[in-house]
């Protein structure tokens, strides 16, 4: 059979496209999925559940520097968040990864300060973290649904699926997200690694997940447990008896940048309160 070069190239091209497509289809289990047994899965009985998880932050309960350190390191140690330091011991801002941290008042609520405010007040510390918004910009922009809303209100991160495009970091108005610019294991000490939680790898975005893995086994988030009593309150906004719901209904609270419409679920209590 004789065939000219153009026809040969056309047939070769179409065959390779079809072959490639078939290999992709089989690799993504579209064809071979029939071998998988149907999974019978359920939730742990001891898991904490809610219709809308939220947090109330009472800064009046944070008294010493130690209170902040304990809260932050509880989260970062449990989740193997890397700690990159420059040779002089200061934080290397270039590779910094943080899920929860301390920020000054004028940084947490920019625009609220006035020219008469003393430096002392401007620098008053606040604990900031992902706000797990109702209508998060990060979820809206993620092209792979690697960040998404769970039915209980948590904005979750799937580190397996993230392609590292960092659109979510551009979209988040609160600067809550960190990217792994290098292998995070370079910023972890081997003896301090929590073996019950994975690390991440370079090239993925990460952030606070309201400790879904702890909620699944009946524990509150690590920061809530480690913070001074009553400093971080965690509960279900849709439960009329929960402490967070009572505070948010009856007391003065503010949230960061509410005018952007993202609906943050972290409320900062004004004036402090008398709750355990």
């Amino acid at each position, binding site marked *: 059979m004789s065939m000219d070069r153009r026809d040969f190239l056309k047939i070769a091209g179409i065959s390779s496209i079809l072959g490639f497509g078939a290999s992709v289809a089989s690799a993504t289990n579209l064809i071979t999925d029939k071998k998988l047994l149907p999974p019978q899965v359920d939730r742990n009985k001891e898991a904490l559940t809610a219709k809308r998880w939220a947090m109330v932050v009472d800064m009046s309960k944070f008294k010493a520097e130690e209170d902040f350190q304990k809260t932050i390191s509880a989260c970062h140690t449990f989740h193997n968040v890397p700690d990159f330091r420059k040779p002089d011991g200061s934080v290397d801002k270039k590779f910094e990864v943080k899920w929860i941290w301390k920020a000054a008042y004028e940084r947490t609520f920019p*625009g609220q300060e006035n020219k008469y405010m003393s430096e002392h007040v401007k620098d008053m510390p606040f604990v900031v973290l992902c706000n797990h918004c109702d209508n998060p910009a990060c979820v809206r922009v993620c092209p792979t649904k690697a960040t998404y809303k769970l039915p209980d209100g948590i904005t979750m991160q799937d580190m397996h*699926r*993230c392609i590292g495009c960092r659109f979510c970091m551009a*979209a*988040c108005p609160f600067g809550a997200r*960190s990217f792994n610019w*290098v292998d995070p294991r370079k910023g972890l000490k081997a003896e301090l690694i929590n073996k019950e939680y994975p690390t991440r790898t370079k090239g993925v975005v990460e952030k606070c997940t309201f400790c879904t893995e702890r909620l699944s086994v009946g524990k509150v988030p690590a920061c809530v447990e480690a913070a001074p009593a009553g400093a971080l309150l965690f509960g279900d906004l849709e439960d009329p008896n929960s402490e967070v719901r009572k505070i948010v209904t009856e007391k003065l609270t503010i949230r960061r940048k509410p005018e952007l*419409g993202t609906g943050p679920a972290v409320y900062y209590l004004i004036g402090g309160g008398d709750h355990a």
Partner: protein
Amino acid sequence: MLEKALEGSKKYWAWVLFLGFFALSGTYYYIRQFNEGLGLTGLHRDVSWGLYIGQFTFLVGVAASAVMLVIPYYLHDFKKFGKIVILGEFLAISAVTMCILFIFVDMGQPMRIMNVILHPTPGSVMFWDSVVLSGYLFINLLVGWVTLGSDKKGVPPPKWIKPWIYLSIPWAISIHTVTAFLYSGVPGRHFWLTAVMAARFLASAFAGGPALLILLAMIVRKVSKFDAGKDVIQAVSRIVAYAMFANVFLLGLEFFTAFYSGIPGHQHPFIYLYKGMMGSDGVFHNEIVPLMWTSSIFAALSLIMLWVPKIRQNEGLLSLACVMLFISLWIDKGFGLIIGGFVPNMFEEVNPYWPTRPEAVITAGVWAIGFMVLTFLYKIAITVREQTAGVEIDH
């Protein structure tokens, strides 16, 4: 027709080798970046997009600019553009290739790129960006190849190509609108949250792309027998003039809204870019200020040069104006736009960004690959035109 790219003079191969050197250096540094992570760049937690995404944004504009030739020729029968349309379409292919490469080198986990297709997210602008970019590449490859092939055979192109050509017009507008939406749909970043972002993008695209095309046509005229014609170049330069006016005007509008409204958040990015601001490290940061002023001065100068007919009609001065215009837009869109959105950060802190050497070499490498694609495609187009010179085809 591909074989035409493989036959060339010593100067042709010297140019290809020159580009190949940069492409190889870029590849070397990319392999290092792939292994070590994006920490090799100057990016950090506050400025998470930089040179790569800036170049991608700029090049989407260049790619869209082919439509400035397609509309007059195919929609309005402006026969003068008949010879030069192919140069615009091939430039679009080269530009879209560079866009895709820049996105690829910017990704943290490029091996997971299939996730965008496996888990499509219609609510995400980035998903749509990948759809429209791939589609535009396909359309231009199809249209360019088929029309050039029929020119070579000395026949009009097949009728079925017409709908694809018409499709490329709104599609070109869409690629740049969607890319603008990446910025203008994101809450919280004052520099980007403006309705005119897409309009600015399109205006700068329709100025910068054809300006590059004028320069390329002049170069092609020097190195081959393919001459677009002085009146064609003049027609394109008028398009550039109008588009550049729109672009400079829209930039002026941005300045007005920021400074007349007096809102600090809106003003701060402009102040950082054009004057400098105190950083959270205690250092006054104004590294980017000279770049931004160059961009604005070049923009004004090139606009004046394009508007004065005597200057515009002088091809030497016109080429100077086009170079200044291209550089101005490259700085403005390929660098200033990104940085203005990220600095100051969400906490009103100034943590500046500057590309590292590996980042710059990878960028140069992608540009080199893009120009190699352009060189090969132009070589094919020029050879076909030279062989069919004198034969008028009615499209």
